[in-house]
C-alpha cells in the first residue's frame, strides 16, 4: 500500500505548501477533471508534464516517484488485462492511456493532500461554512487513529499471551477470534472518549457562540491567480474537447 503515501501530508516549505487549501482544492479538482476529459495518450502526457513540475515545486517528486513505483504492479496488471480483454480498436494504446489517466488523477489529488495539513483542511472547511464541531471531529479522528492502533496491538498481544490463537483455523473461526480483540477495544475506547470529553469540556469546548481562531486562512493574490488560471484553462479545454476537433497529432495512438 506504499503508493498511498502520495496522499499523506509532508511538511515542507514550498510555494505550493503556502497556498490556501481552498485554492489548491480548486486546482486539484480542475486537474482531475481535465484528466477525465481526455482519453488520448498525447493530451494526458501534456497534462502530466504540467503536474510533475507542480509536484516538483512542492518538493515532493521523490515521494511521488516512490509511490508510483509502488503503483507499477497495478499498472502492469491494468495494461495486460485490458489489452487482452478489451474490445476497443487498439487495446494496447487504450490501456496505456488508461494508465496515464490513473496516474494523472492520483497526482492531481496528491498535489492537494501532500501539501495540506489536516489542521488547515479543517480550518478551510470551517471557513467554507462547515460547523466547527464537525470539522473538529474530523481532525480528532486524525489525532486518535494512531493511539487506537497502538491500543489494538496491545490488546492483541495481551490476548495472545492468554492463549487466544488469532491466526489459526478457518474463516469462521478467525472471525470469531476477532471478538476478544474488538470487545476490549470498544470498552477501552469508550472510556477514553469519556476522559477526552472531560478534558475538552473543562477547556470550554462549545461554550461560546463566537469561537475565535488563532489562525485564519487568508486568500492571497497568488490564490486568486491560481483559481483564475485553473478555471480559465478548464473552460478552454472543455471548449476544445467538445466544440473543436482535436488536431490529429493530439489524437495519435499506438497502432495496436
Amino acid at each position, binding site marked *: 500500500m506504499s503508493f498511498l503515501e502520495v496522499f499523506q501530508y509532508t511538511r515542507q516549505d514550498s510555494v505550493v505548501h503556502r497556498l490556501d487549501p481552498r485554492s489548491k482544492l480548486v486546482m486539484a479538482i480542475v486537474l482531475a477533471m481535465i484528466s477525465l476529459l481526455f482519453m488520448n495518450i498525447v493530451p494526458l502526457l501534456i497534462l502530466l508534464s504540467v503536474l510533475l513540475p507542480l509536484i516538483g515545486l512542492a518538493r515532493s517528486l521523490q515521494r511521488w516517484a516512490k509511490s508510483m513505483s509502488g503503483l507499477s504492479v497495478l499498472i502492469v496488471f491494468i495494461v495486460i488485462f485490458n489489452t487482452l480483454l478489451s474490445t476497443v480498436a487498439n487495446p494496447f494504446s487504450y490501456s496505456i492511456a488508461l494508465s496515464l489517466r490513473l496516474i494523472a488523477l492520483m497526482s492531481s489529488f496528491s498535489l492537494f493532500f501532500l501539501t495540506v495539513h489536516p489542521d488547515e483542511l479543517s480550518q478551510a472547511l470551517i471557513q467554507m461554512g462547515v460547523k466547527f464541531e464537525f470539522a473538529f471531529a474530523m*481532525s480528532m479522528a486524525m489525532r486518535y487513529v494512531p493511539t487506537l492502533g497502538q491500543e489494538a496491538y496491545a490488546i492483541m498481544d495481551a490476548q495472545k499471551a492468554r492463549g487466544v490463537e488469532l491466526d489459526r483455523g478457518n474463516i469462521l473461526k478467525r472471525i470469531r477470534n476477532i471478538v476478544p480483540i474488538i470487545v476490549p477495544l470498544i470498552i477501552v475506547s469508550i472510556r477514553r472518549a469519556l476522559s477526552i470529553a*472531560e*478534558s475538552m469540556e473543562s*477547556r470550554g469546548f462549545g461554550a*461560546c*457562540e463566537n469561537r475565535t481562531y*488563532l489562525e485564519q486562512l487568508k486568500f492571497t493574490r497568488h490564490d486568486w491567480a491560481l483559481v483564475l488560471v485553473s478555471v480559465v484553462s478548464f473552460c478552454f479545454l472543455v471548449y476544445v474537447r467538445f466544440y473543436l476537433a482535436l488536431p490529429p497529432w493530439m489524437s495519435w495512438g499506438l497502432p495496436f
Partner: protein
Amino acid sequence: MALIEFNDFSFKYVGSDSLALKKVNLSVEAGEYVVVSGPSGCGKTTLCRAINGLVPQFHRGYIAGNVFVDSKSTRENSVADMAGITGLVFQNPSNQLVTLNVEKEIAFGPENLGVDPAEIRKRVEHLIHLLGLEHLREKHPHEMSGGEQQRVAMAATLALRPKILVADEPTSNLDPQSAEMILELIAEQNREGMTVVLVEHRLDVVAKDASRLILMNEGSVVADGPPEDVLLMDICQDIGIGIPKAVEVFKRLRSKDLHLPEVPMTGEDLVRIFREVVEHDSA
C-alpha cells in the same frame, strides 16, 4: 467567602451505590498550595471534578450540599463557565491532547472562550517559552513522551488563565524525572500566586512546597492542616499514607525522647535542623 468552598457536599455517581464524597467541608483561600492524598477510590478525583463543575454538570448523580468556586455555585454554572476559573490537569496526558500540534492545543481553550486571536498568540508564545516546548511545536502528540504530553496539557490548561490550578495525579503515568519537572512547574505557579490543588501520592516530593495537606478516606476528609502537623498524625498509618523519610526519622527520634525543634520534610531539611541543633549546643 473563600475561593473554594465546600459546604456539606455529598455526591453519588449514577450507577454507584456508595457516596463518592460524604459531607465534605472545605475552604481554600487564594494563594494556598493544597495537596490531597488518600487511598485508591477515596474520592480524590471526584473532589477535583467538583471544583471545576464536572461534578455535577458532566457526571450526574445524587447531590447534597453546595460547592462555591470564586463565589459561583457549581450547581448553577456550566463547566464552560467555570473554565476560566478552575483549570484541571488530568492523570492521563494523551487524553488531554485533542489537536494535532502544540500551538493548536494551547490555543484550544482560549479559542473556545472567544478570546481575541492576538491575545491567544501572546499566551501561546509565553507558555511555549515558559514550559520549554519549543522543540515540540510541530509534533503530533503521538510522537511525544508522556512527560512532554503532560507539559503540553499543563500549558493548555494555563492558557485559560485560571485562578485555580487543579491537578489530579498529573505525574502517575510519568517517569521520575518528568514527574519532578511537572511538580516543579506546579510549585513555580504557586509561587507566582496561583492557588493550587494537587492530588499526589508521593508526599516526600511535594510536602515541602505544600502549605496544606488534606487526607481523604472513603469519601470523607479525615485530616486537614499544615503538612508538618498532618504527617505526624496516626491517621497516616491507619489509611496507609506513605510519609516522607525525614518525617519518619523525626518520629523515631521523638519516640526516643529526642525532640527536634521543627519537622523536617526532606533529607536536606533534616541535615539543616541537625546542624542548627549541634551548632547551638556547642555554642
